[in-house]
């Protein structure tokens, strides 16, 4: 019954086009909602594209190796007896040029049909009657005015990579179409509307889309296939939902007014890194062991500390706080054109050497843009380290729906007073940014205190 359009997903604000690396289903294959249809290369990563509807993959409109603009129709899912000609017809020229230069399908945006200077205006251009269709040539005044409304604003049924793909429904320059209620709920729950696919007419984001998105990261984390065998050290449920106390509810209501949508606060401490530094040099002197970075020590310290400070490993969910029992660590990786935060899953269950290997692998693949979509979502806490840039200290912006992020400065030498007199010590600043809806200053401070203790007594990181 339902004909589902498969379109090139939009994974970031900057993304304008994507390349189909390969189709994992072929025409005639039966697909279920959630099946992986194809792999798509974007400006940030390779993405597995899921089916958004069930049926038969009736038509592949864009062959592997071709690049098309975001939102372009690249395939059609329908039942075997459904008539898909009208949908396929809407695609306009179905053969896009390989590598860039693709012509926009007419149901997405048709800059060619726009007046000069209006290319960035919202445009819905009705499909042009095909010249070989004799009926289309007949002037028909009574039906002409209604023709666009029959075809143009059909509910957008699209395919994305599940929780992250966004399709600009009518090529209107990236403006997010959302119902007022959806916007309000998104602001309250810290959901980024740009990352949501709307299910309403013309791709409008409506309440149910935001509500689905605010619970999606956890579900996605659970559903994502493990990259390597991991053994979570904590058995039992992934999270628990803790009811809001009246005070927490009041804070939750007021805080967004001071800094929408996430009210940040910041706590900074200084860590004596002398012993960590020595430990790291000792470890890196061992034959056959992976190289350990200062950041690996910090990741390990945070992962262990988060287990005993679950309130920091938490997410604001509108009317409740989700406290995670596992630690998925987002590690900010600077790229020339921006920043990406791959996720090291179940990091609390991994020894230092494994963390070092996996973090390095993620960072390298991030720079090569070889990350998969599921490696970019589902973090419960993040670390941003600018130490390599000789930064004393800084404050990071929380990545919703996470509740906190740690900003790491460089390890620098300072004069310190010792029992023997004046000496040289290595110091490092840590600043945690916290979502005030989830936690208060004391929680952030206690967390930092314990991270500091682990780093100042670093043998604890090895046991």
């Amino acid at each position, binding site marked *: 019954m339902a004909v589902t359009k498969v379109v090139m997903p939009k994974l970031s604000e900057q993304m304008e086009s994507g390349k189909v690396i390969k189709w994992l289903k072929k025409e005639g294959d039966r697909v279920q909602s959630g099946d992986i249809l194809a792999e798509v290369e974007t400006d940030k990563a390779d993405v597995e594209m899921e089916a958004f509807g069930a049926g038969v993959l009736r038509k592949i409109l864009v062959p592997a190796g071709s690049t098309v603009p975001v939102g372009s129709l690249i395939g059609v899912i329908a039942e075997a007896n459904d008539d898909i000609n009208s949908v396929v017809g809407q695609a306009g020229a179905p053969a896009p040029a390989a590598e860039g230069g693709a012509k926009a399908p007419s149901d997405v945006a048709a800059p060619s049909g726009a007046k000069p200077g209006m290319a960035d205006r919202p445009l819905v251009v009705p499909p042009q009657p095909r010249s070989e269709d004799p009926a289309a040539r007949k002037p028909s005044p009574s039906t002409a005015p209604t023709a666009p409304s029959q075809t143009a604003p059909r*509910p957008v049924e699209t395919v994305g990579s599940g929780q992250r793909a966004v399709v600009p429904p009518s090529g209107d320059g990236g403006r997010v179409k959302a*119902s*007022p*209620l*959806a*916007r*309000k709920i998104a602001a309250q729950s810290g959901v980024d509307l740009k990352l949501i696919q709307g*299910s*309403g*007419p013309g791709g409008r984001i*409506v*309440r*149910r889309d935001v509500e689905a998105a605010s619970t999606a990261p956890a579900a996605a984390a659970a559903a994502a296939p493990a990259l390597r065998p991991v053994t979570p050290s904590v058995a039992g449920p992934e999270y628990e939902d803790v009811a809001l106390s009246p005070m927490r509810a009041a804070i939750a209501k007021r805080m967004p007014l001071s800094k929408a949508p996430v009210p940040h606060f910041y706590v900074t401490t200084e860590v004596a890194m002398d012993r960590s530094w020595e430990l790291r040099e000792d470890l890196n002197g061992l034959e056959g062991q992976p190289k350990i970075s200062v950041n690996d020590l910090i990741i390990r310290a945070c992962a262990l500390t988060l287990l005993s400070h679950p309130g920091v490993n938490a997410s604001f969910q509108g009317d409740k706080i989700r406290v995670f029992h596992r630690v998925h660590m987002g590690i900010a990786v600077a790229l020339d054109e921006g920043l990406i935060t791959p996720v090291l899953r179940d990091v609390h269950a991994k020894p230092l050497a494994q963390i070092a290997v996996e973090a390095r692998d993620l960072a390298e693949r991030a720079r090569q843009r070889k990350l998969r979509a599921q490696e970019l979502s589902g973090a419960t806490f993040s670390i941003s380290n600018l130490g390599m840039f000789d930064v004393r200290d800084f404050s990071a912006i929380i990545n919703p729906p996470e509740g906190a992020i740690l900003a790491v400065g460089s390890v620098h030498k300072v004069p310190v007073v010792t029992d023997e007199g004046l000496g040289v010590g290595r110091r490092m600043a840590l600043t945690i940014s916290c979502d005030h809806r989830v936690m208060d200053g004391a929680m952030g401070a206690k967390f930092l205190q314990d991270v500091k203790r682990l780093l100042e007594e670093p043998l604890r990181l090895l046991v």
Partner: protein
Amino acid sequence: MAVMTYREALNLALREELKRDPDVFVIGEEVGLYEGAYKVTQGLLKEFGPKRIVDTPIAESGFTGVGIGAAMVGLRPVVEMMTFNFALLALDQIVNSAAKLNYMSGGQYNVPIVIRGPGGPAHQLAAQHSQSMEVYFYHVPGLKVVRPSTPMDAKGLLKSAIRDDNPVIFIESETLYNVKGEVPEDPDFTIPLGQAIVRREGTDVTVIAYMGMMYRAMEAAEELAKDGISVEIVDPRTLQPLDTQTIIGSVRKTHRAVVVEAGAGFAGMGSEIATEITEEAFDDLDAPVLRVTGAQAPMPYARNLERAKTPTKEKIADAIRRVCYANGGR
């Protein structure tokens, strides 16, 4: 409570108010000897005599003017329009005299008049006798406009209208005169003007509808309940003053609204209510407010075309599905 027809409820209200207040009188075409074109004034001439139940020539402007003059000097006339379409002939009296004299006399005069009669589409009454006349009146400052959908409302609101010290336009419906319902027999029972009522509680969408459209919306709601769509129906009952609080409260709960009106939609009651909702509850809306209205055309006589012009259960259900983003809505 007694079960009676809408017609009987109106008759009871008139009878009670004629008994209660000697200043009340009824005036209009065939209200006495013939006992009303739709028998709303049945038995009143016999009970109250020709001074209280006054038959007039076919002269709407004239007898409406008589009523307004009588009201200015302290009486409480109930003027019957045989159908409200005929009120067009009395429009100057209603708009320029009844509605404005209190203002223009600096409060020296008030005009406690009720002008009542059936209006809106019925069954094959054609273009001139099927008009939703409320639109001509609620636009005029100084007029209150009532559209009662049930026998209980007909009685309670007509009594409030007669007791009101300012002009009230009270538009009934040919299609509702035989509708039966429970009506309190208590002569002190009234329903205040300006109070909407929730006819059916629901959680997914608010439908605002009155008179025959309210009953069609009820049928649509029953059908949609089978698909799991929970429809709340608000009946404004009084269009001026409009109880926006009840409407907005319902929309804040359901986040979606459909407004139904029998007349042509352009600048109609649906436009007004949709605007109120957008202004007052914008951040609570999950979908644009939709209107289901009569087509912008004179009412055809042919039964099939009459049906095509008027909002049907199917058209209402379709709009509800659309604001709910549910399958099947076009």
